[in-house]
């Protein structure tokens, strides 16, 4: 690599920028808003605010939503199953972290 095209990219932490709207979250998940609404209704994603148009998502919503959609699609499990799997995965991750200090 020549120094001339050595370029350092600066990024921002999505979770720290601002809370995501329903529209932004569905764009980031490449999913229709209706799919995200299903996740909220199943209690998979916590949404603050009243009507769907005013929902704001923060924290781990992006990662949770993307994982939920992948599980739903790849393993053909229903939303209740996805919710259970996500909770158990989170718990296993937490236990692993305590054991090894990482997710690995």
């Amino acid at each position, binding site marked *: 690599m020549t120094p001339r095209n*050595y*370029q*350092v*990219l*600066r*990024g*921002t*932490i*999505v*979770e*720290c*920028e601002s809370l995501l709207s329903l529209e932004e979250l569905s*764009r*980031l998940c*490449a999913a229709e808003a209706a799919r995200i609404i299903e996740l909220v209704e199943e209690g998979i994603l916590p949404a603050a605010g009243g009507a769907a148009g005013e929902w704001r998502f923060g924290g*781990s919503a*992006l*990662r949770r939503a*993307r*994982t939920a959609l*992948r*599980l739903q*699609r*790849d*393993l*053909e499990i229903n939303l209740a199953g996805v919710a259970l*799997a996500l909770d158990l*995965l989170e718990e296993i991750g937490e236990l692993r*972290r*305590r054991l*090894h*200090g*990482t*997710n*690995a």
Partner: protein
Amino acid sequence: MEFKDYYKIMGVARDAKEAGIKQAYRRLARKYHPDVSKEKDAEARFKELGEAYEVLKNPEKRAAYDQLGSGHRPGETFRPPPDWDAGFEFSGGAGGGSEGAAYSEFFETLFGRRGRGGAAQGAFDAGRGEDHHAKVLLDLEASLTGGTRSIGLRVPEVDAEGRLIIKERTLNVQIPQGILAGQTIRLAGQGTRLHNGAAGDLYVEVEFQPHRLYRLDGRDLILELPVAPWEAALGATVQTPTPGGPIDLKIPPGSKAGTKLRVKGRGVPAAPPGDLYVVLQIALPAATDAKARAAYQALAAAAPFDPRARLGV
């Protein structure tokens, strides 16, 4: 190009019924799904599985694949006969592959990109290129002190002939200080660039490798600090590493193994910063020379002590 034995990958017989194939797929998908599995090569296995299922669940593709005969061994160099797929009409359809899933060269040669489902998923905004997503495993220092890291990415791209190729791409990224495991870095304009110049973004989800000193718990760090028995018993001030540099830590008298001391604000420098928890470990000096042995004996005589008092023996 390597021949792929889709039946072997799915662990089914060549005459397996559709139901059996579906069952095998579900069982293996649960085992190797990258979100669930801790198998080392889960991602590669899952892709291979998705590809095998894509072919075997579809009667047309399966029949075409079976035409190739069973004389090939997996991994062996393979060239399809020139008119191998004559007479087969592929209906394509939505695939079950993982996002960004690129099928093998073997698959693409046989079925082309027609068989690839979901490629255009996410292109809701026609005026902008697609967003890309990736995961990266960083050293914890990248978050603790910030700094630039080289990130290697494998990006599926479409070449001039319309074939899907995997491009290796290295980006030098300034890691935002204080980023936590599971958070995502947005790199604006690093997604697919359309001809009109409007590019999507690249989203990189961050995880950390195990660290030599610290365990990570959200934004808090946990450090196991060895202390001498007399430091724990009598109290002491000891040098303790923290991400921001060593500090003098006061060990209160009467501390035990497992005593947890909180050093406020010395965890991951996020906003707000996490705390550093120092967990004491009692390290024993070896009783190898006569002097040390005598000291242990003197302690045993001076301080009657039953470490097993609570075990009821």
